[in-house]
């Protein structure tokens, strides 16, 4: 599906905004709503430049009324519009979860498939910059646990653009999580992987496909977004010790690409799952369970899980840095698995 890849580099946020702009040009029904998505361009830049290009009618600043405007996106989608609605931080989900969980996720099913909700709810996730307990979560599993929503969390500018276009074109409701620190914003930590090659035109990256981002034979490390990048760093260090780690970028939580994970585990016989979400009842559990169900005999050692250890995200830098899995923690856990 992808067009020929050029050499143009974009930050995550610009890749996202470009995806939305392309779709807004292509289809009149696409529009954007959310707090500060207009002149401000979205607090995390996901709508940068859209207001100037498309105006206040199609790039709508909303009151602080998440139930109201996310519900309105549902109502508009039911009428054939294709809204992209931004929930500024995923942490705010609790003020509007009823609209997301009971309506956005279920109406298609409850209507026997007769009502379609082609909408995207995009939201910023992730911590690491001392934004504390109410502004640093990822909540991957909270959303992935409910049937009826596709839940994706791309990690590179290329995927951000391609998966956003795919999400907008998808006739199902999609939760699109972007990681704040992977947006490549000028006022955040400058990470190499928040900038990447992004082709100019339209292309899609299918929702629901994990990607082996680094091949290896000794241990499989599954991660998503920031944890995937850290896993790749850890894999480089592991290589120095002669350990070949295979790293999988999950990309989608729902649909979950079990095959890519199982294939890898069948090859490496060792599994480490890394998550920036809370440990218990989270993504690491689901991946571990799938493997324990479907590839148990392929496992040579117990499954390892690394995630936020069931505490709210603390503000103080040393505490926060300690509870979000680091490159070192991933390295150590993976090495332990191999040396078992």
């Amino acid at each position, binding site marked *: 599906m992808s067009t020929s890849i050029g050499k143009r580099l974009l930050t995550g946020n610009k890749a996202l905004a470009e995806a939305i702009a392309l779709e807004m040009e292509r289809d009149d029904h696409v529009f954007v709503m959310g707090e500060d998505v207009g002149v401000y361009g979205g607090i995390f830049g996901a709508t940068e430049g859209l207001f100037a290009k498309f105006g206040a009618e199609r790039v709508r600043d909303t009151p602080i009324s998440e139930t109201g405007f996310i*519900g309105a996106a549902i109502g*508009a989608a039911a009428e054939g519009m294709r809204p992209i609605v931004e929930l500024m931080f995923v942490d705010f989900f609790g003020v509007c979860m009823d609209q997301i969980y009971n309506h956005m996720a279920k109406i298609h099913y*409850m209507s*026997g498939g007769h009502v379609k909700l082609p909408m995207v709810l995009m939201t910023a996730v992730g911590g690491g910059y001392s934004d504390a307990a109410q502004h640093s979560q990822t909540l991957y599993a909270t959303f992935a646990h409910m*049937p009826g929503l596709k839940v994706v969390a791309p990690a590179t500018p290329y995927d951000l653009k391609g998966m956003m276009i795919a999400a907008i074109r998808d006739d199902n409701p999609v939760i699109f999580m972007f990681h704040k620190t992977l947006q490549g914003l000028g006022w955040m930590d400058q990470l190499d992987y928040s900038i990447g090659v992004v082709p100019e035109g339209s292309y899609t990256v299918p929702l629901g496909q994990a990607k082996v981002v680094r091949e290896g034979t000794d241990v499989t490390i599954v991660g998503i977004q920031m944890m995937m990048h850290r896993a790749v760093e850890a894999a480089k260090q592991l290589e120095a010790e002669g350990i070949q780690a295979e790293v999988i970028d999950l990309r989608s939580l729902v649909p979950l690409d079990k095959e890519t994970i199982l294939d890898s585990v069948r090859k490496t016989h060792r599994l480490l799952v890394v998550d920036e979400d809370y440990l218990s009842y989270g993504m690491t559990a689901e991946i571990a369970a799938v493997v324990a169900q479907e590839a148990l005999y392929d496992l040579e050692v117990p499954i390892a899980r690394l995630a936020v250890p069931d505490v709210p995200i603390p503000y103080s830098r040393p505490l926060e840095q300690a509870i979000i899995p680091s490159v070192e923690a991933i390295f150590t856990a993976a090495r332990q698995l191999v040396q078992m």
Partner: protein
Amino acid sequence: MSISLEQMKWMYATMVKIRYYEETMVTAYAEGKSPVFNIGAGPVPGEMHLAAGQEPAAVGICAHLRKEDTVTAPHRPHHHAIAKGVDLKRMTAEIFGKQSGLGKGKGGHMHLFDPEVKFSCGGIVAAGIPHAVGAALAAKMKKKDWVAVAFVGEGAANSGAFHESLNLAAVWKLPLIVVIEDNAYGISVPKKVSTAVASNVERAKGYGIPGFSVRDNDPREMYQISEQAVRHARNGEGPVLIEIETYRYLGHFQGDPELYREKNELNKLHEKDPVIRLKSLLESEGVVASDIAQLEAQVRKEVDEAYDFARKSEYPTIEEALLDVFE
């Protein structure tokens, strides 16, 4: 702002249809639930919220609506659905959990979706108001003169979704009409225990929008005020709030012991029955008894056929449970 005879007849016939539909449901719902009442038993299991007595709200405004106008309704949705013209057979089949239902039996009585006439409802108090805001927004963005009507109970007016929706619709000047059916209770809780103001029309001021009050469950007044409200919205002048004082003859749901109200209260309400009142009006306009009887017979037949259709339809096969999660 007078009602034509045609419209009055439509309203009367629709009210009778609703009333008869609900009465029939009382019986159907009770099937299989005796001698011991069991909410999960019988051909119509689950919760059942009926609207007998609340017909004026639904017909008074739906009389002014077109197919392209949107209606969202709450957990007590039959009167709205019928007044908006939802396919009665498929609606009933849905309530019986059948494959021929609006939602192939997956939705149930609180989850009726008929995109043909732009009707939907849901089981979460006040949650349908934002959906109507969205429909109104879609109409505006598509440059159509369609309106959206959200029905809710007076209890719903205390929830956050109500407030957020009205403010949003007002700042965006959307063609939204919120109709509050004040039937005096949210389940067992009387309005004065739940609501800080006697009339929710007071709250319209907080959004700078017109608010209207309809007293005493009067179908004609509801019709007339709705006409203004719909015109206002359709003309692009923004949202409107209507609160109608209405009556809930039955329990909150079927099986409600109703210990929170005196039986006497119900007798008084029945004395002012809106169906009877509208019938008198028709008579006073010179409609002869046989014509009225014919209207009644016609809608009863429709209702009977709908129930018949529902009963005769098949249950979905269990594989159906796994379908329609995604497109």
